């Protein structure tokens, strides 16, 4: 067996699996009702329009059936009555680490957040359970008019801006889980980048579920004004419990003409978390939206980052990787809708299944009748590393314009014996060789990540490959 001590040292065996004692200041009882929804809104002192939309969303959620596709048996295991929908562990969102409660501060320090902020981030928000506990942004960006707040503060400080865009890309009636999120959302990020401003270094949000049977429902809204650009990075972890938690976020991106939004995610929830997320962006003329999406953890992920190419000349890219281990089902994919002419898109999906895990690519690409000269390309590659694991591909392509050029290709294979033999003949152990091949397989994804994330992802994958041989 190869020595992966370096990787273990860097990553640990699901290094984020510890938990702090639950020391909440407000904790709602388990279960969801209109009263709970109204109480959350009241607690946050929200405007009436937000309370109303929450209640409407709750009513929709109550009526809406569970999806009749995907891993229905896993979905049916979700007990909505055994989830806490709001839990606050800190009285306020702090701008100084020293003011964050000590136990929470320790959590994020163990996750390396303050260090990362000092070295290479433009801003950070850290969410613990339902609320953001820490938030900061570089002064020079603030002075240029960049708004980077937790969503609750965004609603308080910029109600008109939030009202204009909230639910404009993902309506609450979009699906059962977007309705749930709209009803009980708390936390998340609100970002506005003014016209022509380029945020050179990424901003990061870090989401942590600590309590058992917790539901985290953050809501993120990013608006990039004309000609601006921003790179947003999010990471997610949770402790390992024997009971399940639910993470159901909604992310809305608005890329106004000529702007560029890149949204990177490294999802490493523990294997007891349902990760059911709706992410969608709308790209106006010549705007560009990129989703860079890594799914490593969780029990069941259902996530299909989407882009609506509304403006002529807009472009979308989705690059995603998924690792499915024991008991995991990564049901991920992408959706791109070409509504305008001369729009282009590219989807690259890579997945690995191991130890009985199941990886699914589920995607949709549409070209509307009025969208002339569109080009799109979809590539899905999957590796199945052992017996009992599984890989699925469910792509949908609807083309209603004769000038469109659309390509989709997918392949499922095992690790090539020739590649293994070559690496072993160069002195690597079989396990190291396998880890290198897997890292090479994921390389188109990791090269799009900030360096620190790419290194950690490579180490994480090396660790996951440990014990693969023999």
């Amino acid at each position: 067996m190869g020595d992966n001590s370096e990787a273990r040292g860097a990553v640990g065996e699901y290094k984020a699996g510890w938990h702090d004692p639950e020391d909440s200041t407000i904790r709602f009882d388990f279960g969801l009702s209109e009263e709970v929804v109204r109480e959350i809104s009241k607690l946050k002192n929200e405007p009436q329009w937000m309370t109303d939309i929450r209640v409407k969303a709750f009513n929709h959620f109550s009526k809406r059936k569970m999806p009749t596709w995907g891993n229905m048996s896993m979905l049916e295991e979700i007990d909505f009555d055994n989830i806490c929908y709001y839990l606050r562990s800190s009285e306020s969102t702090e701008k100084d680490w020293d003011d964050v409660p000590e136990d929470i501060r320790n959590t994020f320090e163990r996750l390396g957040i303050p260090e990362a902020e000092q070295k290479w981030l433009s801003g950070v928000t850290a969410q613990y359970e339902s609320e953001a506990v820490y938030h900061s942004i570089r002064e020079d960006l603030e002075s240029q008019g960049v708004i980077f707040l937790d969503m609750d503060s965004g609603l308080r400080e910029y109600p008109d801006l939030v009202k204009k865009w909230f639910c404009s890309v993902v309506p609450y009636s979009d699906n059962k889980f977007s309705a749930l999120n709209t009803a009980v959302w708390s936390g998340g990020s609100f970002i506005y980048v003014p016209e022509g401003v380029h945020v050179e270094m990424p901003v990061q949000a870090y989401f942590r579920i600590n309590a058992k049977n917790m539901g985290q429902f953050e809501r993120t809204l990013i608006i990039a004004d004309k000609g601006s650009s921003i790179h947003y990075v999010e990471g997610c972890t949770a402790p390992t419990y024997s009971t399940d938690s639910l993470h159901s976020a909604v992310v809305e991106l608005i890329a106004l003409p000529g702007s560029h939004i890149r949204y990177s995610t490294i999802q490493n929830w523990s294997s007891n978390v349902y990760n059911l997320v709706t992410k969608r962006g709308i790209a106006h003329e010549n705007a560009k939206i990129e989703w860079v999406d890594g799914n490593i953890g969780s029990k069941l992920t259902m996530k299909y980052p989407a882009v609506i190419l509304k403006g002529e000349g807009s472009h979308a890219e989705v690059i995603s990787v998924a690792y499915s281990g024991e008991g995991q089902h990564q049901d991920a994919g992408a959706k791109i809708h070409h509504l305008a002419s001369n729009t282009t898109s590219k989807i690259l999906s890579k997945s690995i299944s191991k130890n009985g895990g199941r990886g699914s690519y589920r995607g949709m690409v549409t070209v509307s009748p009025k969208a002339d000269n569109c080009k799109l390309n979809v590539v899905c590659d999957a590796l199945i590393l052992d017996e009992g694991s599984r890989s699925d591909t469910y792509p949908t392509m609807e083309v209603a314009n004769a000038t469109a050029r659309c390509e989709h290709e997918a392949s499922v294979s095992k690790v090539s014996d020739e590649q293994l033999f070559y690496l072993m003949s160069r002195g690597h152990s079989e396990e190291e060789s396998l880890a290198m091949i897997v890292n090479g397989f994921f390389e188109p994804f990791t090269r799009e990540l900030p360096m620190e994330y790419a290194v950690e992802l490579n180490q994480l994958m090396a660790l996951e490959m440990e014990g693969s041989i023999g």
Partner: protein
Amino acid sequence: MDSASRYLRMETPDKADHLWRYTPWKKVHPTGDLSEIPTLGQPEISLSLIDGSKAPNGIELKRGGSGEPDFSMSSALTNSFLHASAKDSQWTLVVDRGFSPGKPVILDVKASGFPSVAHISLEIGKMAEFELITRVTGNSEWFGLLRTGQIQDGAVVNDVVIGLLERGTMLRSDRIEICRDAQVRAGTVSSGSDRTKSDLRYIMGETGGNIRVLGSILSTESMHLDHHIEIHHEAPETFSRLSWHSACGGSSRTIGTGMLTIRKGSKGADAAQIFHNLLLSESAEADSIPELEVMENDVVGCGHGTANGPIDEEQMFYLKTRGFDEEGAKNSLIAAFLNSTLSEMGGGELHEWLVSELTLQLEALNS
């Protein structure tokens, strides 16, 4: 449970089921009343060689079916409905072991006047080697064709179904088992009927099965042609290729959905599927969903692809420089596009016959 009871117990499929995403069952059902299994008429069916001569010994079309087929698979709605509605309209095509006529055999199905249905059971004997064309013609408002059966060990069969109904709706369902070392080319040529819904399933449950599924689809005017193809690898060393070419003109719509499954234990499986769509007009639409489920890691390879596009301008330019007019160049490219799958469906004589049928359809496209 018999097919009628099974059908009546089924829930109406919704759009989340890709088989029914684009063509709701209500639009395909002969009366639209989903709780009804209507009494339908019988088509005229005859068997001959391609030159019109009598079918030789070794192949026989008998009245009556061969018992309750095994529909124990998910979403067997079309099979169950057609089997229940065709209880008085069953035939069995019995092909002897080693049958080898040297010429293609034509099974002519004429569905005229009234809504009708036929269930044809295929009993293809071991080591048989022949080409079968099932040609559906007529002006029936509604026609249902169910084909079930087995292609037994070592048989080599080119099985082509050509749908040329003048109008109306055609519902077709196949459930064909491919036995040990059998080699099958399953071709579909479709350019008739206003609406076609096909649910084609090929199961390779024994080692060495080999199938090539081929489609040449030409849709014009306001046609709606929806083909769903499932290929199931359930045994080691099985091989499949699916190649589906659709040319779509007028305000028509073609749909190709595929499901390729590799069950656990199908070591050495080799599978691929590809859908090509050629869009010929502004209001035509082509949709594809090539699905893949792989539960075995020790496979030679599994892949799928889709490509959509218009007629290539460079190819048009080249043909025009060689003296073709606009229409001639376009027709040549459409014919070449459809011919790339048509030419794989069988031998020279079968191919020639198919091309002559296709030429008539292309002429209709321009008229």
